[in-house]
């Protein structure tokens, strides 16, 4: 079986059905047994008038990241797609509508812009769709049909996913879509005869494997929260976190939970603290600007030791910034943001499956350590789709993690009892004999305000001891290497780690000696493990999607020399090829 690794883009104007086409493509490829990683980008304007692009990487091996070179471009709008030309691989295939409604001047067509050896598949998508279904609406399906025919994807695979997607809209819509698809498929078989390939024939034996679902990061978070027994969701819409709220709004009520849209992010975090205070698992999701509003109340949770789960889906900043672009630049704000010495737990999943698991985990962490837990994702992780076995949480993973006070202290309950672990057993309001006062003022064990020098020192120390102790429950860094001394060690976090892993894999295939370390526990972090890894590396490289090198700032003191930073504030994911290039420049000459 030949190895397949194709990056496919669908590009069009808002309204062309670009995202829908990309989604169907991913579903069909997943059903065909391939690994899929997809990422959509859509216009920043709320009214939605501009370019939509879906990027999917399809492979026979597991896929960790998107590539920067596109092998197949399916254009639904030449003007929009022209901007994608620089990203085309040299021998790319380009599908485009060869019969636009009006004539275009020289150089204004997509065909004019591509390199000569690009294989052009021009076909009259709009006409074919209109001829098949009476409307040009289905031209996105027609385009998929042409693509499927050309790359050897069986018709049935697509018909199945089209049916799944459209059957709810009635037979007429479904029929029109299938007809539009078939028109493109038939045209492709007939007119591209000399260029047909069977690259994407389904993998043999696909039915035997575990059933896979296509999930985006956001959807995985939503499912994770529900599986973890979320009761209350409070939030205020913001890109890219909104889909989480939309998903929960649809699914949570039927499980007895509630979703409340608050007037802003401040009230959202306030309500989350209130919910957890009252014993119900609660969460909110936001992005940078909303997160900034929450910081004061987050530190209230730190001070009053109230659990909370806050999902920060990072986007380009500062301020309103780049609402539809990806960035990893809220690490500082998540770890350090807010007044005072306010330790909290920050975790950052690096792929869709981890989005699920870490969301589930965040509730137990919040309960056990009585603290706000910040889950850091980013636009690229939230919106990318991967196909993965249906994720499930075990009973243990979702069990109540609250440490309740012993009956022996009934009537003499100290909410902020000094302990070795720093964890003071927590009662829930309503538990008889376990009343307490909770406050954002500095307080003594009983909870009453107290500003003495000694008490503030002890209590601050207790809170930090508690958080430091959380390390035992936090996922340790994962190393990907052959072990032993490494020429280059690449450390990464969040959505960037996939690209790192792929670059490292390729480097090792090329005979280099490099390794990767994935850090998902951002704070507290496993300093010892990280230092041990660094010590084995001649050079340490930290690629991340921000300008300041925020993870590097957090951990670079652990290395005996300067770490090499690959800090990119471009709003777009780092491609593996860029990391690979950096690795190659760091490897001493002749090392391979």
């Amino acid at each position, binding site marked *: 079986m030949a190895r397949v690794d194709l990056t496919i883009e669908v590009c069009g104007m808002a309204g062309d059905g670009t995202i829908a086409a990309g989604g169907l493509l991913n579903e069909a490829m997943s059903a065909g047994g391939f690994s899929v990683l997809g990422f959509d980008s859509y216009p920043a304007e709320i009214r939605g008038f501009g370019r939509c692009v879906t990027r999917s990487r399809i492979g026979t091996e597991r896929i960790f990241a998107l590539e920067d070179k596109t092998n197949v471009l399916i254009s639904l709008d030449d003007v929009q797609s022209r901007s994608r030309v620089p990203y085309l691989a040299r021998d790319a295939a380009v599908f485009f509508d060869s*019969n636009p*409604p*009006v004539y275009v001047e020289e150089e204004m067509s997509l065909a004019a812009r591509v390199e000569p050896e690009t294989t052009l598949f021009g076909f009259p998508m709009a*006409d*074919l769709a*209109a*001829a*098949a*279904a*009476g*409307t*040009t609406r289905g031209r996105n399906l027609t385009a998929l049909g042409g693509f499927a025919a050309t790359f050897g994807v069986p018709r049935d695979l697509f018909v199945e996913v089209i049916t799944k997607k459209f059957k709810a809209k009635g037979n007429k819509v479904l029929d029109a879509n299938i007809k539009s698809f078939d028109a493109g498929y038939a045209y492709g078989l007939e007119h591209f005869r000399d260029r047909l390939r069977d690259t994407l024939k389904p993998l043999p034996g696909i039915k035997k494997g575990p059933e896979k679902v296509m999930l985006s990061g956001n959807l995985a978070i939503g499912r994770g929260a529900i599986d973890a027994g979320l009761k209350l969701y409070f939030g205020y819409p913001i890109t890219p976190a909104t889909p989480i709220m939309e998903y929960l709004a649809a699914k949570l009520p039927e499980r007895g939970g509630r979703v409340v849209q608050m007037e802003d992010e401040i009230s959202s975090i306030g309500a989350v603290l209130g919910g957890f205070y009252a014993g119900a698992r609660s969460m909110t999701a936001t992005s940078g600007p909303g997160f900034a509003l929450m910081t004061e109340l987050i530190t209230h949770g730190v001070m009053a030791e109230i659990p909370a789960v806050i999902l920060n889906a990072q986007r380009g900043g500062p301020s309103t910034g780049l609402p539809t672009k990806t960035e990893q630049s809220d690490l500082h704000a998540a770890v350090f943001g807010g007044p005072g010495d306010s330790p909290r737990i920050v975790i950052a999943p690096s792929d869709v499956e981890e989005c699920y698991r870490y969301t589930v985990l965040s509730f137990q962490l919040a309960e056990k350590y009585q603290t706000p837990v910040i889950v850091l994702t980013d636009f690229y992780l939230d919106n990318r789709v991967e196909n993965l076995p249906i994720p499930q949480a075990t009973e243990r993973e979702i069990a109540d993690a609250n440490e309740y006070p012993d009956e022996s202290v009934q009537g003499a309950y100290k909410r902020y009892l000094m302990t070795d672990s720093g964890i003071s057993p927590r009662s829930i309001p309503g538990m008889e004999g376990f009343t307490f006062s909770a406050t954002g003022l500095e307080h003594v064990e009983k909870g009453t305000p107290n500003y003495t020098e000694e008490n503030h020192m002890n209590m601050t120390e207790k809170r930090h001891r508690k958080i430091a102790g959380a390390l035992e429950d936090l996922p340790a860094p994962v190393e990907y290497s052959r072990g032993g001394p490494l020429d280059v060690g690449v450390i990464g976090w969040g959505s960037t780690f996939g690209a790192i892993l792929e670059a490292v894999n390729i480097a090792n295939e090329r005979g280099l000696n490099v390794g990767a370390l994935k850090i998902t526990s951002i704070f507290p972090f496993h300093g010892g493990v990280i230092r041990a890894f660094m010590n084995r590396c001649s050079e340490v490289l930290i690629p991340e999607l921000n300008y300041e090198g925020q993870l590097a700032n957090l951990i670079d003191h652990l290395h005996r020399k300067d770490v090499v930073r690959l800090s990119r504030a471009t709003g777009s994911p780092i491609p593996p090829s860029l990391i690979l290039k950096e690795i190659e420049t760091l490897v001493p000459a002749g090392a391979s």
Partner: protein
Amino acid sequence: MREKSSYLDKTLNSEREVIRNVVYSTDPADFSYMAANVPCQAACPAWTNVPAYIRCLYEGRFDRSYEINRIVNVLPGVLGRICSRPCETKCRHGERELGQPVNICHIKRAASDFKEPGHVYLEQLFAPLGKSVTVVGAGPAGLAAAHDLAVFGFDVELLEALETPGGMLAYGIPEFRLPRDVLKAEIDSILRLGVTLRTGVKVGEDVAVDELLKSRHAVLLAAGCYAARQLDVPGEDLPGVLSGLRFVMDVNSGRAPMLGKRVLVLGAGFTAFDCARLALRLGADDVAICIRGTEEDLRVTQDEIHEAKREGVHIRSLMVSTRIVGRDRVEGVEFLRTRIEGTRPDGRRKVVPVDGSDFCVPTDSVIVAVGQGPEPIPAPGEKDKRNVLKGDPTTFRTSVPNLYVAGDFMTGPTTVIESIAGGRRAAERIAEDLTGRKFREWAVRIHDTGVNDRQREWDFIPRQEMPTVLPAIERFQSPQPEVEIGYSPEPAHEESKRCYLCYLHYEIDIDACIYCRYCIDVAPRDCIKLVREVVLDESGAVKRLVETTAWEEVNAVVIDNERCIRCGACLRVCPVDCISVSKVELVQRALETGRE
């Protein structure tokens, strides 16, 4: 000018829509509109209401489809086979980027093929006038004139020099192109109006024009063009050199000459192609049509060229004959090479021989098919230099009172449909001259129509080609089969769906329009425009739309009916129903009754 009357219109078009508001207009602006917007009808010399008959065929109303043709064209079944199809070159579906023209002609044939076997067309007859007219020549022009004169109430006598009526249709066109039973049936339907046909009567020999003028109120000469032109090159009188027209007429009369294996046809028109294709059927196997220019200069349809080549006819171009050589019989033809040197004022290309480039092509027979002219008929009145009676092209009058001319006899060789149209107009003029009143007039009929049920899918149906007898070898059996087999019902129906129905008129009510531009989004081409100004011509019809891209300058959203393909997409998407559809047709109505 526009008389608005609302009345019941029960006779036409659709049993389903019985009552409608109908307006008949003779406003020049409306005629201008028709000329620009229903290009097929405007291109037809007889102004056949093409969209209407195609629509009827689509609805399965074959009789009515045939009748709509029959109103202006007395020989629909014949024309459905051999018409020169000026309409198809103007068909909007054939515009660049829209595909190929509708097969208008073959739909006509389908209507004729599928109509009830015993179908009888009920003519709208006028009261008898008690006056008599003799029509000379039973070809297309004579038949059409005789028919209309009979309808107007004249006592009509039709004289034909040859043995059967039909003129060139009976003698000049091979049977593989036009089966004679089709012709006979349609001629019979003319004769049954009381027209007295006398064949084998050669006017000028058997009976003098003067004599006819004495006994009849009027005489119309429509004797056609039977005098074959000559090449005027040495050797043209050698045995084995045949006149094309004579050759075809001989074959049609069952007197086929011996040709030999190699035949050169000199000529570039339909007759040349008929000769070449007949020659193959008579056993020749190396037949070439030699033309002065290139294939582009040929005056025949692309289908004709294709079918001829498919049968094995070669076309040899850029050569002009200078001499026919041979001792006792033709042995070869000498040619000069030619070159194209620009365009002549009439738009045709100027082809000149190259001095000294002569070469000889050996052959067994030569058929000269370079056209024909009218044969002079002895008659009083003013003549041209070839001694043929001259007539006025609009009044059809000659210099002799009550003596009229029409058809190819007056104009020189034209097409069948032009002859029919000419014959009809001549009949009208004669009737007006003899009675002092008008019998009928053209008007634009405008009425509301229900929502257009055309589907956008239909625009993409490929042109349904006429099936022919294939492989071509099968055509050479005896008796000659008709090469074009005719549509079966299904492809005919498919083809009828392709017609855009340009007689539909889409209009945006600008007072109701909210400028949402949804219609522009769904438009199949740039047919709906944002305009600053609508410029009218002197007749009051839309001449030009001044478009603008500056939103603040937009004064209206306008459907450009000349770009519109009547797909109905705008109509379906308009949120405020401000787009209306009306049906606009050019019709001829009888003035006395108001009926069409």
